[in-house]
């Protein structure tokens, strides 16, 4: 059974443009081209994150109300 998303095909330049637009970014074309070149390595990285963690696995941060009160 797959434990990550690394089998998914890489996003196309058009898909990267669409995702960037949906994120509210309006990049000049030169910067968009740089980003389209940069994103695939990050996309591959995020897809390697395991997705089969135990249901009760806690994220590595916790809300500590006493600390907020003290500060």
């Amino acid at each position: 059974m797959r434990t990550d998303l690394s089998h998914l095909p890489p996003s196309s330049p058009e898909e990267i443009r669409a995702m960037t637009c949906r994120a509210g970014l309006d990049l000049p074309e030169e910067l968009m081209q740089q980003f389209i070149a940069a994103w695939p390595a990050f996309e591959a990285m995020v897809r390697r994150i395991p997705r089969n963690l135990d249901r009760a696995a806690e994220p590595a941060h916790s809300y500590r109300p006493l600390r907020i009160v003290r500060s």
Partner: protein
Amino acid sequence: MDPTFLTIAELNRLYGQRELSPVEVTRALLDRIAAHDGKLHSFIRVTPEAALAEAQAAERELMAGRRRGPLHGIPYALKDIVETAGIPTTGHSKLCHNYVPAADAHLVTLLKSGGAVLMGKLATWEFALGGPSWDLPWPPARNPWNPDYLPGGSSSGAGAAVAAGFVPGAVGTDTGGSIRGPAAVCGIAGLKPTYGRVSRRGVFPNTFTMDHCGPLARSAEDIALFLQVIAGFDAEDPGSEDAPVPDYAAALTGSIKGLRLGLVEHWYAHGAHPDLPPAMSAAVEVLRGLGAIVEPVQLSSLRDYTDCKTTISIAELYAIHEKDLKTRPQDFGRILRNRVLPGALIRAEDYVQALRWRTVLAREQAMALKQFDALLTAGALGVADPADPNQPDRLVSVPSITMPFSVGGLPAIAIPCGFSRAEGLPLSLQIAAAPMAEPTVLRIAHAYQQATDWHRRHPDLR
């Protein structure tokens, strides 16, 4: 007496014996910076008048027999993401070119109270991530061992300035290795303390859940003295740990007999610089010779740790810089922009999964540290990179050997353990231990440095 490469411990002794004064040392180091930093660009801003005023004040107090602590009258410098009241703090970025903070970072307050002498603000990668960059208002720092090479990053100026003999100590920050990396490739010591050991208040954020401040210096002993002044609880830093600050220098017993050390050899056994594995083997033999018990230990791959850390980081970085990326993206350097923009496409579930994975990876380290007093591995996988503006960005493609202990939030020090034959550049050993076990890390590093002299070798800047 030439104070260029005197350690903080040696300066303290000479101040005590009145053989050298803070003003003499400060003047000599300011002259050295003026003579040589034009090639190295380690400083963004030198503050000579303020430094001399602080040195004179320290000298008056020391002469009157009032010693504030181990950094009294000791020159140091700050990575330029640490805020300083009345002194510009740029983040090495066009975005903060004219930013002058109204208040000092908490650790600067501690250093001022301790009588340390601020010499200026140091080059960094843009906002402690984007570098080395050639399209920023200031050039990237260069490596004092060979200015055709870089000093690592992101505490690039700190690594270069300490190695060059401009200051005996500096403050850097470390999210994924930004203290240990420059220390490793500049042939000095750099400590990333436990997460929460040193306050981050007043320091530009990179990744809230992994930002650390810590010292770079030329010996483990100096790291202990520096840490003594900046460590401690800060109620206004939500990540700060309310734990007692031990006497770090007292931990430097010189003995590591019987300590159990886990060697994470598989992280550097393949793909590293060819001179690194033999240098590490030699370092392990030194530690065994001192009575330590060194055994192999297997942890998750560097790829896993790097993926986990970087996913968390870019999500947090994007949140920090979102407003500017949407309104003035062209004002960021190309490298930083292309490292942070991906955070816009990280989904909430990706970020949370990475945080959950961090718990799993941190527990793996905690389990290993039930068997061992400390973990050993390399401080860097290679030597310094060439200063080539056309190098490809390797943030994601090449796994990092410093990121595992960032994920774990553990104290970790990088110290020199040799030089490469071809380039003549420093190689480094990394030592990590359980949370708040800085005394153990420093004890091992100090014992190693008592038995070796790598840390006493310095670059010739002529």
